[in-house]
């Protein structure tokens, strides 16, 4: 019975759910906001995007984001090295927070997206898919890659007046990974995978 009902996330009103045709959008009868859209092959889209996303993620974390020259001193900024550097300097809580929110949680989320979309594609091991989807649902709120990216930009603007800055491969990889995850998490959303999981049940 509840499978045919959808509760609007904006106004909490129940609506009757029905299958959509291509380009159709379901809106809430009460508040008029979008409930769900027609989408096809979501698991295939997520699978192929995250596959490339994981590669971009590794480049973004371990390769230089920027190279900097301040009054003759030269260095490069790599996210993983920065976490280790501040951890060794004694800023344990802050570096652990960055490690989890910028490195571990986004990586685990990306891998969980990859595995769950693959398992949904091949319709295999439902209980493991459920565990993966729960993992994404809980962790996605603690991934702050987008804010960290803006923080890098703000820091660069602050340093532009007294430093020579060269953007490196990590910067491009970071933007690409961020764009992929933005599309998967914000535009498609984990709810779409939950819907496919329910249909396959």
């Amino acid at each position, binding site marked *: 019975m509840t499978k045919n009902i959808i509760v609007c996330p904006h106004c909490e009103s*129940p609506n009757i759910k029905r299958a959509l045709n291509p380009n159709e959008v379901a809106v809430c009868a009460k508040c008029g906001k979008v409930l769900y859209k027609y989408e096809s092959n979501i698991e295939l889209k997520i699978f192929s995007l995250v596959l490339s996303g994981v590669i971009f993620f590794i480049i973004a974390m371990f390769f230089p984001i920027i190279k900097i020259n301040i009054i003759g001193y030269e260095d490069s900024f790599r996210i993983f090295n920065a976490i280790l550097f501040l951890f060794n300097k004694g800023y344990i809580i802050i570096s652990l927070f960055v490690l989890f929110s910028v490195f571990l949680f986004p990586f685990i989320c990306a891998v969980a997206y990859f595995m769950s979309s693959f398992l949904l594609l091949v319709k295999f091991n439902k209980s493991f898919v459920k565990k993966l989807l729960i993992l994404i649902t809980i962790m996605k709120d603690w991934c*702050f890659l987008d804010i960290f990216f803006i923080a890098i930009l703000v*820091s660069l603007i602050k340093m532009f007046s007294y430093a020579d800055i060269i953007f490196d491969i990590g910067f491009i990889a970071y933007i690409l990974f961020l764009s992929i995850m933005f599309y998967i998490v914000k535009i498609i959303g984990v709810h779409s995978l939950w819907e496919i999981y329910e249909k396959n049940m």
Partner: protein
Amino acid sequence: MGNIRKKYVRCIHCGATNTAFDEYCKRCSLKIKTDYSFIYTSLAFLITAVIFYFPANIYPILQTNKFFLTYTSTIIGGIFELWKSGDYPIAIIVFLASVLIPFLKFVILFYLIISVKSCKNIKLKRKLYKFIEISGPWSLLDVFVVFVMASIIHFQYISIIPQKAVLYFLLMVIFTILSAMSFDERMIGANCE
């Protein structure tokens, strides 16, 4: 619609529709909270966040070493410096993300907690909660900027060193996010209509 509405509850985790009698979601098996017990948890996190707000703004956030000169700056001091040097957009962003939005979040969350059972301004309250939900983590911007600056600029004669306000600021933001997360938005106007 009033009766049907009370019969169905949306799982805040996976979005599935459950009946009001279900304790756990039929799809994701996570707990579906539909009572007002969250108020105490949310309020406790909020009070903790407010406590951390004061040291975060009073103590210096970073120390700059330039050759033989050393100076420290607070969040407000840093904004003034940015403004004086003509970096108006960054000064505004930092002011919004680090000072104004955290303060607004406290006021809004407190208002939402004390008025969740009230049937007045339901639409406004839902919009305010969305604002809190979206803007909440953006206060981390300052913490991340200090992190990036300190890890890039650490040379012999020029360096940036994070100070204790960063930790307080980080804890303030984490507790504000926890307060917003533990607030059950579905309970806004749940007993109305």
